[in-house]
């Protein structure tokens, strides 16, 4: 972390407190709703933690078969584990995998155990799931060990680079090359559309579009390759992937077990940009964040995305509001400050007078509001054009803001943003750009002192004020969960998403009174068995 957290903005502390209080007020009802529901993906994630993996010959994962069969048989209101371990206890199959295989042809009858049967099923399922949780714990310890051995990057911000060939075997050497050239964090961009698959693909994959499928095997291959490179370059190279989407809980579980280090996980991205049902999203999000909290994974939120559909000046305060909500939801799920890679982006029209200073002001606002979070600073995308020479220049000024405002994670911008997914040379040019700016100009923080009530302070206060007003407005919305109303109204990213529509709605199930999920219990209590 940058040793110095610049107290440059002189925000009114009362305003900051007020903003947080409002965020809690807006977020709490949604957490309550999330706690009263489960989803097919939460249940599948639980089975994955219990050790069920693999897929049939059509690549449909066994967890999907089993959850679907249970749902058809007895419903998911009590969770998937009760009927499943009850069936195992009853000897319907010798093990979980066989049970799932039999269930895929609907040759198992499930029932909801009661009394002692229920207690026994609960106990055995908890044992099974605890196994997965301990794998996560072990991976977290392994990460801590490796970081100690190889070391953290020397500088802040950490340099975050994306790889997106669609083919894990092309991704690997590119990621390794990038790390050798200075990348601290590698993100493997996911194949477009994966987030809408209601299952997690299996195995090593070579056929993604504009990204590579997120699979357990791809996670494993890349993490192993980067472990080697970490040794070679003498610093621990972090690996990132995307949790967002219909399988958020499962991917979070896989990431924890395969030692990914950061995960894209936003409370609203799926809703707004993927038209995933809001309830589905909030339920999945809470579970996935509990997993990330346990795994010591840093989450990356997606506020940058809003600025691709809304204007970055007019909608600046929506970013702040979303950051406050992401913070609230994250802490509620057990994440700590150092795990909050809250997002924001350099997306103001560069032709605007003083656009660079406005970026500075917005970036400082985030820095000041969340002094202990490793903010993730996202590069220009919307105003990038096919003029790659200009593109590299803009990226340089983006990097300068990153350095001047003490950002934690710098997502490296590419000059070809408006043209193609990054080429190998684009990454190289981009890293050279970052190195120049951090090395030659990074120390400029010493000389950067926005004066009291100057342009930068004034703008930051204005944005914070607008954020407070918006939060206030949201709390004034009707209904039990005003945030859901606000999302339905198009408050964020100009997307209107009612809670009664969207993809994955049919995978949402209201919990019955006897609902049991040993994963949730282990995560919420911190227990290991």
């Amino acid at each position, binding site marked *: 972390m940058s040793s110095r957290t610049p107290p440059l903005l002189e925000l009114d502390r009362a305003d900051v407190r007020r903003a947080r209080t409002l965020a809690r007020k807006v977020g709490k009802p949604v957490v309550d709703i999330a706690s009263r529901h489960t989803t097919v993906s939460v249940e599948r994630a639980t089975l994955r933690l219990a050790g069920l993996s693999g897929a049939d010959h059509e690549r449909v994962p066994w967890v999907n078969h089993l959850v679907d069969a249970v749902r058809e048989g007895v419903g998911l209101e009590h969770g998937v584990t009760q009927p499943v371990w009850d069936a195992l206890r009853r000897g319907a199959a010798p093990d979980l995998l066989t049970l799932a295989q039999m269930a895929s042809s609907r040759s198992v009858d499930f029932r909801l155990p009661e009394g002692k049967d229920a207690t026994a099923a609960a106990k055995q399922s908890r044992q099974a799931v605890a196994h997965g949780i301990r794998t996560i714990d072990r991976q977290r310890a392994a990460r801590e060990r490796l970081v100690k051995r190889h070391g953290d990057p020397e500088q802040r911000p950490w340099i975050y680079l994306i790889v997106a060939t669609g083919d894990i075997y092309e991704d690997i050497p590119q990621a390794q090359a990038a790390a050798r050239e200075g990348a601290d964090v590698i993100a493997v961009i996911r194949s477009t559309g994966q987030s809408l698959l209601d299952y997690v693909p299996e195995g090593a994959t070579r056929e993604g579009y504009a990204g590579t499928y997120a699979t357990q095997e791809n996670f494993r291959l890349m993490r192993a390759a980067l472990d080697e490179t970490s040794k070679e370059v003498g610093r621990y190279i972090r690996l990132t992937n995307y949790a967002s989407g219909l399988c958020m809980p499962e991917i979070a579980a896989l990431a924890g077990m395969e030692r990914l280090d950061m995960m894209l996980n936003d409370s609203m991205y799926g809703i707004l*940009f993927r038209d995933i049902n809001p309830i589905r999203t909030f339920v999945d999000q809470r579970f996935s964040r509990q997993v990330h909290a346990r795994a010591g994974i840093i989450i990356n939120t997606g506020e940058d995305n809003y600025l691709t559909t809304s204007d970055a000046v007019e909608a600046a305060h929506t970013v702040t509001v979303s950051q406050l909500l992401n913070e609230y939801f994250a802490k509620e799920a057990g994440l700590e400050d150092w795990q909050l890679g809250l997002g924001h982006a350099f997306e103001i029209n560069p032709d605007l007078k003083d656009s660079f200073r406005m970026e500075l002001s917005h970036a400082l606002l985030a820095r000041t509001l969340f002094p202990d979070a490793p903010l993730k600073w996202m590069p220009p995308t919307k105003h990038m054009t096919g003029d790659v020479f200009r593109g590299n220049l803009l990226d340089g000024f983006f990097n300068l803001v990153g350095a001047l405002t003490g950002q934690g994670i710098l997502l490296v911008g590419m000059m070809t943003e408006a043209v193609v997914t990054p080429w190998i040379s684009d990454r190289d040019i981009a890293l050279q750009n970052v190195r120049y700016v951090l090395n030659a100009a990074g120390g400029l923080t010493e000389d950067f002192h926005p004066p009291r009530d100057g342009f930068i302070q004034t703008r930051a206060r204005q944005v914070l004020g607008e954020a407070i007003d918006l939060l206030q407005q949201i709390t004034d919305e009707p209904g039990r969960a005003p945030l859901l109303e606000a999302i339905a109204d198009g408050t964020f990213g100009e997307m209107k998403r009612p809670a009664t529509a969207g993809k994955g709605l049919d995978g949402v199930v209201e919990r019955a009174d006897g609902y049991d999920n040993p994963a949730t219990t282990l995560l919420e209590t911190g227990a290991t068995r």
Partner: protein
Amino acid sequence: MSAVTSDESGVTELPSVLRPYGDQTGDGMVQVSFTLPMPNGKRAEGAALQLASRMGIEPALVVHAKAIGEGFTFFVVYGPVKHLVEPGLVEVVEREFPLLSGKEINTAIKRHLRRKLVVVGACIGTDAHTVGIDAILNIKGFAGEKGLEYHREVKVVNLGAQVLIPELVERAREEKADAVLVSQVVTQRDAHISNTTAMSAAFREAFPAGKVPLLVVGGPRFEEGSAGSLGVDRIFGRGTTPGEVASYLVHALVPQASVSRQSKGA
């Protein structure tokens, strides 16, 4: 379909052949960059010169060579290209319809179609880039022009992103769509091409010949002139404005109106 012209009107003042211009007429100068999957060194530099020469750059100067990892080298090359450019041979796709004002559009539809013109729009496949199609369809519009929704006589059904093709065909049928507008922004591995051809095939299968709605695709990276091979009626590229699209729809679907203006336009 679009009128392809090679009329000389626009080129009369241009010489019949010309060359790229660095700092002197006829110098032919170009800049090229690429990566070769070879370790940096003399052989790689020679290979870069070989490629440049095959591209017609002679003499080519490798002004920058940088190793990327161990097996790749990035090059920047400058030099004169020997090819000539013949502007007269360029087939310019001229706009084949007149640009109409909002009022003209409404009037034409009202008078000559005598019902609302129905447009169904979507991003298909897994493409979630809605900014482009929204720019065309939503009231908010683009580049200062209001989107299609703004026109009283146009009914817009915007299905949003990630619409499956069967779903789109079904909605088009339900809504009795006059035109189907589809956006495709992701182009890696030619996703836009396969999605578009699949889409047009589905429509041609689902509707009797002559009843297929007008098929329009748009996005920043379509090749001009490829509408035919994609099986659609028209392509709109980078920087399209809603007014152009509305005018085209009237031209293509409201024949009277377009005839009555044709003389003045284009």
